[in-house]
């Protein structure tokens, strides 16, 4: 069922070590890379239709095209390793098990955009992974893979890679907040530009790509875009690291070509529900994607377009599985606590709205709920949607709004039965 491109070395013991990974083909794309022009690399990535794996799903090649050409300013690649979306734990697998693949991807991407400094912005909690990355980067410098030249002079191209640790802020996964943070500030997302353009790090052009996206590039370089597009669906070609968590038998990260049925993945790779429980719902791609009921899960197909068709999104591919024992009021409360805690507080609707929903659900859980609270939550979700600087608030509206709508009966029963604090 799995199609292993990014995860092809995950099963090899000590694959994080240069000597081991090298034996198994890491940096194999570079020989080909150096025969290509930067434009050819970008074209290959465009044609592969590689899409951002951090949740947005935007075309990677198009994004790279926003980088100004022949610009005298230094340019930067910023790898987004701020993986913090609940239900998402795939980038850590790449950094843990195949850090040299990420370095290889950084080399290919930097070469394509004429970038000589790459930062890996990693969430602060992944300290152990930052250490692992630093060890791998040290190995790469020592082996002459990066540094003043690439591959010991095989390509006269200077490249430095720096690991930069965050310090506990989900919002820094938003690319402009990430750059603010990298610039040493609070992670407040920037206002969106009025035209399509690259990002800016201290006023210099920069591009921000997710770890998995960058780790997918070597395959496209080495074997051509056709090798990538032969997997998946016409509109969502290639593969993605899907994750399963919650009460399934085999939670974990699995690389799949796009187009598999969600329920098959849960039952086959996930081994089905733990303790023979019934599936109740799935939050498909990190907790910011609209929830799917068990009926919807049966219909859901894991590619971007199919997920839109059933009113949700693919997100990061991190599926949170919910079984029949779970109380949806508590699930909603748990999720809003996360967002309330993580709202950067910059713009009004998000700062105040997340707290307000949290307060309403707190009352509901503490036996003071009213039926009108359900509509109040929906109202606030409406206000959160489409009025903020970044997509944090719309995500809250999507997930909380969808839980309240799809499990309204459960909310009503909960409130009417006044179950409250005793409920487990």
């Amino acid at each position: 069922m799995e199609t292993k491109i990014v995860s092809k070395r995950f099963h090899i013991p000590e694959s994080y070590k240069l000597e081991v990974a090298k034996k198994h083909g890491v940096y194999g794309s570079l020989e080909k890379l150096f025969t290509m022009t930067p434009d050819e690399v970008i074209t290959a990535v465009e044609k592969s239709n590689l899409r951002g794996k951090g949740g947005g799903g935007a075309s990677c090649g198009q994004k790279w095209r926003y980088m100004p050409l022949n610009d005298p300013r230094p340019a930067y690649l910023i790898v987004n390793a701020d993986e913090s979306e609940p239900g998402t734990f795939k980038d850590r697998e790449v950094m843990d098990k195949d850090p040299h693949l990420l370095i290889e991807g950084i080399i290919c991407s930097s070469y394509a955009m004429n970038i000589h400094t790459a930062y890996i912005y990693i969430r602060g909690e992944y300290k152990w992974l930052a250490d692992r990355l630093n060890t791998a980067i040290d190995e790469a410098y020592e082996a002459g893979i990066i540094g003043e030249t690439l591959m010991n002079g095989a390509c006269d191209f200077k490249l430095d890679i720096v690991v930069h640790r965050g310090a506990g802020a989900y919002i820094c996964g938003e690319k402009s907040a990430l750059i603010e943070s990298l610039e040493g500030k609070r992670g407040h997302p920037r206002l969106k530009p009025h035209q399509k353009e690259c990002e800016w790090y201290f006023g210099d052009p920069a591009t921000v790509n997710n770890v998995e996206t960058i780790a997918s590039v070597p395959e496209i370089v080495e074997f051509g875009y056709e090798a990538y597009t032969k997997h998946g669906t016409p509109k969502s070609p290639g593969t993605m690291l899907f994750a399963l968590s919650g009460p399934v038998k085999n939670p974990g990260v699995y690389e799949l070509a796009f187009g598999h049925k969600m329920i098959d993945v849960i039952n086959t790779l996930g081994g089905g529900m733990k303790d023979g429980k019934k599936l109740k719902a799935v939050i498909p791609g990190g907790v910011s994607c609209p929830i799917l009921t068990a009926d919807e899960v049966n219909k859901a197909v894991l590619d971007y377009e199919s997920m839109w068709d059933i009113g949700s999104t693919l997100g990061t591919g991190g599926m949170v599985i919910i079984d029949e024992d779970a109380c949806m009021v508590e699930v909603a409360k748990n999720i809003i606590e996360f967002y309330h805690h993580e709202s950067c507080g910059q713009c009004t609707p998000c700062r105040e709205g997340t707290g307000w929903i949290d307060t309403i659900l707190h009352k509901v859980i503490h036996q003071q709920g009213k039926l009108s609270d359900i509509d109040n939550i929906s109202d606030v979700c409406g206000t959160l949607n489409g009025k903020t600087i970044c997509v944090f608030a719309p995500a809250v509206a999507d997930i909380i709004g969808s839980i309240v709508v799809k499990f309204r009966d459960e909310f009503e029963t909960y409130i009417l039965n006044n179950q409250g604090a005793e409920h487990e």
Partner: protein
Amino acid sequence: MSNIVNIVIDGKEVEAEKGAVLIDYLFKQDIDIPHFCYHPALGTDGNCRMCMVEIEGSKRPQISCDTPVKEGMVVRTQGENIEQVRRDILELELINHPVDCPTCDQAGECKLQDYYMAGGFYESRLEAESKVKAKKAVDLGKNVMLDQERCVLCTRCTRFTDEITHTNELGIFSRADHSVISTFPGQELESDYSMNIVDLCPVGALTSKDFRFNQRVWFLESFEAICSGCSKGCSIHVDHKKEKYKDDQIFRFRPREDHDVNGYFICDDGRLSYKDENDNRLNDASINQETVSTKEALTNIADVLTANPNDTLLLVSPFLSNEELALIKEYTLNNGTTLSGYSPQYYDESFADDMLRTSDRSPNRAGMMALRINENEKDFNELLSQKKVIVVIENSYFEDKAELFKDKKVILFSSKDTKVKEFANTVLPVASFLEKDGSYTNSESVTQHIKSGIRKNAPVGTLTSLWKAIESLSKEKA
């Protein structure tokens, strides 16, 4: 001309400058777009999300503070959709706000209150006990009080200390709805312009310690004037009030937007100088320390001036208006008295900065110079030793130099109570700087006119009216 584009606002076709910030253009058209964070001096921040408008072709409402004007743009600022959006966001602004208007000093000039009233009342959907609690009545220093619960986190104040004064005293701490504005632990505001954040604050989070609880703003009257604290002559609003059974009193100065002079701000010293207008006033006319009527004093002065024109030195000051200075200069030319504007005591190098404050702490030296009134030190000292009659007009030079009056006859015109009156033969109170009309020319040659709105119960005569009375008395004698 290519810079002018055609746009449609609320169904009306208008011309606008391409690339201008839409909200600025709407202000110019007198369309009051609700907003908290945008301020023309501080630019766009986009955090409050109140200034939303509908733009045809945009899926979602857009904030007008971050929308450049474009050819063919169709903008709607009214209508149920967009008004609902604003109501929704306003409700969120208020959700953690204590709604303590009855005890809040901002009431009457609070945007939150204004928008709430304009948007239609509604019941709060969050009980008071569930609101996020924060610190109230924090003294930030420099006469500024902070109430964190009332703050809408528009960051105007932090941007002011960051971008305008570069003193960086204020910041945002913590995250989400626990975010608050404050200073670094143990530190206070330092800037000489700190009190501007009180005006910048659109709500009651930052209030003036000097003004708070003194007056309800809706009882105040206001007139436009300039500050006399230095030769910059910053444009101000004078907020005053004449209470029943009490005299007219000034309660505060506020900066008045003036792009030729001060922009949007004034310094704290200037702002608090309103007290000088109220305090320490000279009330009674006197001759040889005996209180007399104004009429008696005027007759006495007319007698002295008529008797000794060639032996009289008139000392004016840069606190007088252009009109007053011209009047006295003309008198000198007609009557053979001598005139000086010597006033070095108003120079204070330590007061000057690179923002608004200048080293000349008087408002009209440029006007005095334009009238070619001599302020040369040597000339003044020579005249002082020669002349027997010294007429001091609103000039504090002799404040601590009374010994120079030895063997002189001294006539004092002053709005302030001063030690000099003890050494003066004749003393006559005059209307203060803000109690009279007049024009003043600042250090950058900008001339501004004041029309006073003060109405005292027993108004003191203006220098102009008193001087004219002296002139006609002198003529009668002649």
